[in-house]
């Protein structure tokens, strides 16, 4: 058994209203020093050891991320 983390983020050119809203809220809260926020998704998968990198990439590519607007990264933890 292994744990795999897949992080999915919007491509840089896609507008991220959630990140923008957080940045705005930080400003209103008087927090200085944060100049950018992007929000993405974080998946933690429990996988059997037999599941290889290719299979994981396929899962990320077809289901967890939409490659039209998102990039992803996979790491075993």
């Amino acid at each position, binding site marked *: 058994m292994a744990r795999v983390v897949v992080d999915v983020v*919007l491509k840089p050119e*896609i*507008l991220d*209203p*959630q990140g923008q809203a957080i940045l705005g809220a930080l400003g209103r809260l008087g927090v200085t020093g944060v100049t950018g926020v992007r929000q993405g998704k974080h998946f933690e998968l429990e996988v059997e050891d037999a599941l290889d990198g290719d299979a994981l990439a396929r899962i990320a590519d077809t*289901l967890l991320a*939409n490659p*039209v*607007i998102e990039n992803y990264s996979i790491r075993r933890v």
Partner: protein
Amino acid sequence: MVTFPGSLDDRDAARAVRAAGGEAVALWHADPWLHDVDAVILPGGFSYGDYLRCGAIARFSPVMASVIDGAHNGMPVLGICNGFQVLCEAHLLPGALVRNDHQRFVCRDQTLRVENTRTRWTSDYREGQEIVVPIKNAEGGYVADAATLDALEAEGRVVARYVDGNPNGSQRHIAGISNEAGNVVGLMPHPEHAIDALTGPGTDGLGFFRSLLGVPA
């Protein structure tokens, strides 16, 4: 009329088909057989709770394999709201729908301009006709890269645009698009909620369903 678990406007869309003079046939997400229908509507709602991304899970249901085949063979397919999202996820239409720029669900009566009347779903309208149809979505902002947007506009594949205010931050005010052949249309607004002045803002939405029935298959 496809029902996915979590579809909400399926009965409404079936009612709209009947109001336009057609016969509505219920299709179930787990059943790949399309029951010899002439056209398919993917209704609004929250298929699979819209968990992960809207439409992402529904896109893999057995019925969608048949819908994708049919669409490639010229069968008319209309995706409304969640159905539009499913069509994008299934790559039958380019681009994607993202969270509204103001981050909230929005339900309101929206004015649209119909820009392409050559699709299977819009021939009943006049080009440039302004219609009022409800929108209701949380993730209705249409996005695509600049080249795709340019191509959509150049090829006249923007079916309808928002006028009098963009309700969700959609790029270039896009409310609906079609594929190259014009048989597949995705629409964020809900024409099925504008077929009766008693229960909606008017009857402007009927044209989508009439268009389909008016053009011989």
